[in-house]
């Protein structure tokens, strides 16, 4: 299950969605908006995406996770738009028969999301400046 949404992420629904009688382990990851980045104070984030490509990349990541681990169900959801401190920006929930599979699968999925999916965040600093985050250089 893959979704880009402008609404708050109902992470509990995602966790419930992936539970399966044949899967003894569920791992749910939530990325939330942090108030500090290094020593800079963030007051909010704005997320932008290239939607159809982002959905394609999500689908590729889901397929790759399913090819590597015996996944019962997996949910990948990213929120877009304006987020306040503490809001959930991304959620990944995975069920597998055994716990180490579920941990590895969930971690791989979020690592891949952060590497491959065309989504960008704009920091809204406490001093009023804003800055798109493009890792790797200034």
């Amino acid at each position, binding site marked *: 299950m893959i979704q880009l949404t402008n609404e708050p992420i109902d992470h509990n629904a995602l966790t419930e969605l992936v539970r399966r009688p044949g899967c003894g382990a569920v791992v749910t990851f939530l990325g939330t908006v942090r108030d500090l980045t290094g020593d800079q104070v963030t007051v909010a984030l704005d997320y932008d995406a290239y939607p159809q490509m982002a959905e394609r990349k999500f689908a590729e990541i889901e397929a790759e996770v399913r090819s590597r681990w015996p996944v019962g169900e997996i949910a990948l959801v990213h929120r877009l738009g304006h987020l306040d401190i503490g809001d959930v920006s991304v959620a990944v929930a995975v069920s597998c028969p055994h716990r180490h599979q579920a941990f590895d699968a969930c971690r791989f999925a979020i690592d891949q999301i952060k590497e491959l999916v065309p989504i*960008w965040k*704009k920091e809204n600093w406490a001093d009023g400046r804003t800055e798109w985050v*493009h890792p790797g250089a200034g």
Partner: protein
Amino acid sequence: MMIAVRLFARARDLAGRDMLPVELPAGATVADLRQSIRLACPALTDLLARSRIAVGDDFAEDETKLTAGVDVAIIPPVSGG
């Protein structure tokens, strides 16, 4: 052929628009597109150098050939999650 290059995040801010039209000869590649983008919008030069180009909603190589009507976008380093 006319290619409409989609711009996101800082690329959109630098160009002041969300779509950059670029005229290219038939058979042009992504490398040709990069050169044309720099000429059409020099402000994008630095960010473009560390961005990938998407063609048809997937990452493309410099050798990838462009075709009329295909979706093309500049993908600056991503920061989702």
